[in-house]
């Protein structure tokens, strides 16, 4: 379980999170929504212990991770698979080496086994023909798919974290990524948290929606509650969704 208890965080003088509190189970399908620069990605980084809060507690599976060292954070981070915005592939490595990277570094598997698994993973995410390409030769959608394959390479985790998985993608590629995320969640039967500002993507994938505005959670509820909310900023944000749902 993930628990945020009155978490405050600032970048220099700019307060990004102001007393954020929520609880989430690993099996849940959660979307964290809000405007750009509203602290969504900060929440994800806090969960992974990549940054520490100024105030408040973050508890992952019963462990307060606030003051843990990098070594102590390793077992906490291993509970998650993360796909960063735009994939975060290593520019100097071809696709197959990017996917093989974690298997080689962490699992220390022999080369034959690694490349067998790389082929299998790339096939699973639908980019088997991109094995030898360099990251700069990939389209935005292929980037995300390869990043998902790399995240899958270290085996089953408790939860997937996606940072803006469809940002900058055309509708067709966006649909493909949504289908892939849904398929993975069903096949692996694990939950995920998606950081996004595209409400329709969140609607297609998630059961729970957390809205951030000015560093505070202004809405936390399910689909039914989202459609009937009276909170004006949330209503403004989901206008397009309401239009598409009514259609």
């Amino acid at each position, binding site marked *: 379980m993930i628990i945020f208890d009155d978490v405050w965080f600032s970048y*220099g*003088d700019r307060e990004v999170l102001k007393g954020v509190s929520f609880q989430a189970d690993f099996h849940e399908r959660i979307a964290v929504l809000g405007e750009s620069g509203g602290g969504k990605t900060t929440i994800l*980084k806090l969960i*992974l212990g*990549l940054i520490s809060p100024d105030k408040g507690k973050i508890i992952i599976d019963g462990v307060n991770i606030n003051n843990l060292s*990098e070594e102590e954070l*390793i077992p906490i*981070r*291993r509970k*998650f698979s*993360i796909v*960063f*915005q*735009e994939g*975060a*592939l*290593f*520019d100097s490595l071809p696709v197959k080496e990017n996917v093989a990277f*974690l298997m080689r*570094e*962490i699992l220390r598997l022999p080369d034959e086994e690694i490349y067998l698994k790389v082929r299998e993973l790339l096939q699973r995410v639908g980019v088997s023909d991109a094995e030898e390409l360099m990251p700069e030769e990939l389209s935005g959608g292929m980037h995300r798919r390869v990043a998902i394959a790399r995240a899958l390479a*270290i085996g089953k985790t408790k939860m997937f974290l996606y*940072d803006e998985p469809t940002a900058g993608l055309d509708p067709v590629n966006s649909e493909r990524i949504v289908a892939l995320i849904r398929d993975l969640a069903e096949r692996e039967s694990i939950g995920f948290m998606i950081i996004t500002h595209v409400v329709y993507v969140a609607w297609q994938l998630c059961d729970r929606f957390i809205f951030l505005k000015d560093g505070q959670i202004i809405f936390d509820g399910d689909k039914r509650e989202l459609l009937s909310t009276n909170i004006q900023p949330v209503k403004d944000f989901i206008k397009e969704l309401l239009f598409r749902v009514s259609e």
Partner: protein
Amino acid sequence: MTIQKRRGLFLGVNFFLHSLNSFVLTYQWFTVKYEAEIKRMLYDIQNFYLICINSLVKIFKRPLYINDIIEQMEYAGASSVFIVSLVCLFVGMALSLQLSAELSSLGLKMYTGKIVGIAVIREIGPLVTALVFIGRVGAGQAAEIGSMILGHQIDTLRVYGIDPIKKVVIPRVVASVFMLPCLTIIGDLVCLFGGYYIAVFVSNQSGSFYWSSIIEELTFENVFSGSIKPFIFGYLISCISCFYGLTTRGGAKGLRTSTTKAVVTSIVVVIAMDFVLTRILLYALGFSL
């Protein structure tokens, strides 16, 4: 106590209290205004020292990332040979030209080789090579690591328990520490050849005398003095570049800032360190001033 003395004491105490009050107010104003900057500066200094220390402490801790070290050596070393040679050739020629002109007016033209030899081996070779190295390798390292920060690649390493110091910083530090001395040897040789070309073909001096006076200067003191510096310069350049790369924030503008800072800081530190090392080495090797 007379009234005048009391008044004097009163004025003295009053002056002291006013001064104390002004000092406290100035201190408060200063800390409020610059608190964030001071904190950030101290935090940066602490992080820089941590990178310097960890890059030494963790060097033999497994995994060793040999392939990364070789790849970085190729980038820092082999790929820099041409530019180092080119710069050193012109520096050697300019130095020899200046010395020949000045010394011939004094009738001491035959000392050109001797002075070029001492200057290049002890000072100019290591310094010029280090400056070229900063521009090519240091800037590259800062920019590469900075873009890895902005592209979340460093975060990816941390998430999966891979130490960025071991995977990213140490291969670059090791490559710089071992490649800069190699480049300095090449740079010294090319510099001396540049000097030879001017001395023989422009200044009409004897080539064999030029080389024999240089060989005379290849003493332990001179060679040691010139060869210890590149190891230290390489370590400093790489630590500074990696530090600025790892502290990159804020998109393309932030990347530009961190790369510029890495280059400027490296240049200043290398030149200052060159002076300090020269002073220490002259003292340690028994040169009298």
